């Protein structure tokens, strides 16, 4: 475990030694951002809309009390969504989608000697392949989390109003009640940290794959598992330190 962590740190260091030109890395980062971002919009949209809807219905079920105003449902949906569900659940979903894709892609490149081909050309393969993925993830994840926040709240609104749990006015009053802008900042900090964790852990796992197709599959699984655990630990630490 400690040895792996040491190797991970050395891997991180290798990303910043003998980098390729900024022009090349910029182009690669844009490509990766499109791949990671655009391709993840649909899944993030579906997951976050339903999470918002389910949260709204469940909160309404638990707050079935005449002394509690119905607008509290909107308030709770907003708080849960911004503080926890949007950044964390979105990141866990992305760990499955983006993390496995990064690990699988790099693992395949490693076992088919494509990484060696880069090295023979005098290119720092780790920097060329991994750094753009990490930068792209760090740029794109916050955008996806903002989208997830918006769609979750919208999902809650639709579920709440269509099911008749509360009126549109009550929901909007609730989501505007006692709004703390720092919570958004906190969520975005979380998304950046999670983006770093997912992309770096998946890249490290994929880049160090040896063997054949079976090992590539194992690397993908391992990347997702490790990323999810890292997200949960990171989530706790960030909540403890920043709230």
């Amino acid at each position, binding site marked *: 475990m400690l040895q792996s962590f040491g190797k991970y740190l050395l891997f991180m260091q290798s990303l910043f030694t003998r980098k390729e030109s900024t022009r090349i890395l910029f182009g690669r980062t844009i490509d990766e951002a499109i791949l990671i971002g655009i391709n993840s919009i649909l899944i993030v949209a579906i997951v976050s809309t339903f999470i918002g809807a389910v949260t709204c219905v469940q909160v309404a079920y638990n707050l079935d009390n005449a002394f509690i105003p119905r607008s509290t449902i909107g308030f709770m949906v907003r708080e849960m969504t911004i503080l926890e569900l949007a950044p964390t659940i979105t990141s866990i979903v992305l760990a499955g989608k983006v993390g496995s894709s990064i690990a699988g892609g790099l693992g395949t490149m490693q076992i088919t000697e494509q990484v*060696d081909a880069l090295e023979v*050309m005098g290119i720092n393969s780790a920097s060329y392949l991994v750094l753009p993925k990490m930068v792209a993830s760090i740029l794109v994840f916050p955008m996806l989390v903002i989208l997830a926040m918006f769609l979750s709240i919208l999902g809650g609104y639709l579920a709440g109003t269509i099911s008749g749990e509360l009126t549109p006015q009550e929901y909007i009053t609730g989501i505007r009640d006692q709004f703390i802008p720092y919570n958004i900042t906190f969520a975005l900090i979380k998304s950046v940290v999670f983006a770093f964790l997912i992309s770096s852990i998946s890249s490290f796992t994929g880049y160090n794959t040896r063997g054949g197709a079976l090992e590539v599959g194992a690397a993908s699984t391992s990347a997702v598992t490790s990323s999810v655990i890292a997200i949960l630990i990171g989530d706790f630490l960030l909540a403890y330190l920043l709230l």
Partner: protein
Amino acid sequence: MIEIHNIHKAFGDKKVLDGVSGVFETGKTNLLLGASGTGKSVLLKCIVGLIKPDLGSVTFDGTYFTNNKLDIRQEIRRKIGMLFQGSALFDSMTVEQNVEFPLKMLTEMNKEERMERVNFCLKRVGLEGANKKMPSEISGGMKKRVGIARAIAPNCTYLFCDEPNSGLDPQTALKIDELIKEITEEYNITTIIVTHDMNSVIEIGDKIMFLYEGKKLWEGTRDEIMDTDIKELNDFIFANRLMRDAKKVEEEEREEEREEEERQHNQQQATQDQEKAPSAETIETQDEPQPENPEGPTATTQTGKTQV
């Protein structure tokens, strides 16, 4: 010219290379020969720097490579072209982009110059027109050609080929061997080829180094290899011959089987034709006015045949 001196490499307890030294000359196809697991590929990777040897040194045209400063190693690496066993083409790029890649990364050429060079290299390896194909859409032999084109695109000084004809049929393998030989002589580069194929030795081996259990057992030319008295090398050649003979016998047997099948098929066809023939002639003869036929149907048939 590439010189290696006293290369040692072990993976855990397993000693893979044990003090290998030698010189690989410019403008010649230098072959690293040996059975599987004798350390040929590891030696090749030690030379290009993909694996760090435990001991020993490599020099490229007098410049020390192993453990030298990163900048110097990078400079040398940029003169290296390598053809990998599985071709190692970038899956996400087209043939054209694969060949263009080193030019984009290692040179200051503009797009137009790069494309000119790409087309030249593809033409040189006989792949003009395959520019837009993806690696998954081309055959193994074509992949090897693209690999060679990518290796020579940035005007490499050193060409390394790791089992260039593995997985190819004998005819394609021969073509790839010839292509490497031509390119080596044409551009006067230092080429090192890892192989266990005696056909390659006979066809293109200018200088051969035979490895056995991580040690260099023999070095010489292809004319000298048949006269050696080293048992391991002779065994290797014999095994190769046996394999080739076995293949030859197998091919001959297949050829015989094919001929037999063809003969049987022809016979069947002839029999069927013969069976069909009388009825056709009968029809033909029925259409025409029949002469008097005292001898029966056979005579009718003969008449029919004569008419045809």
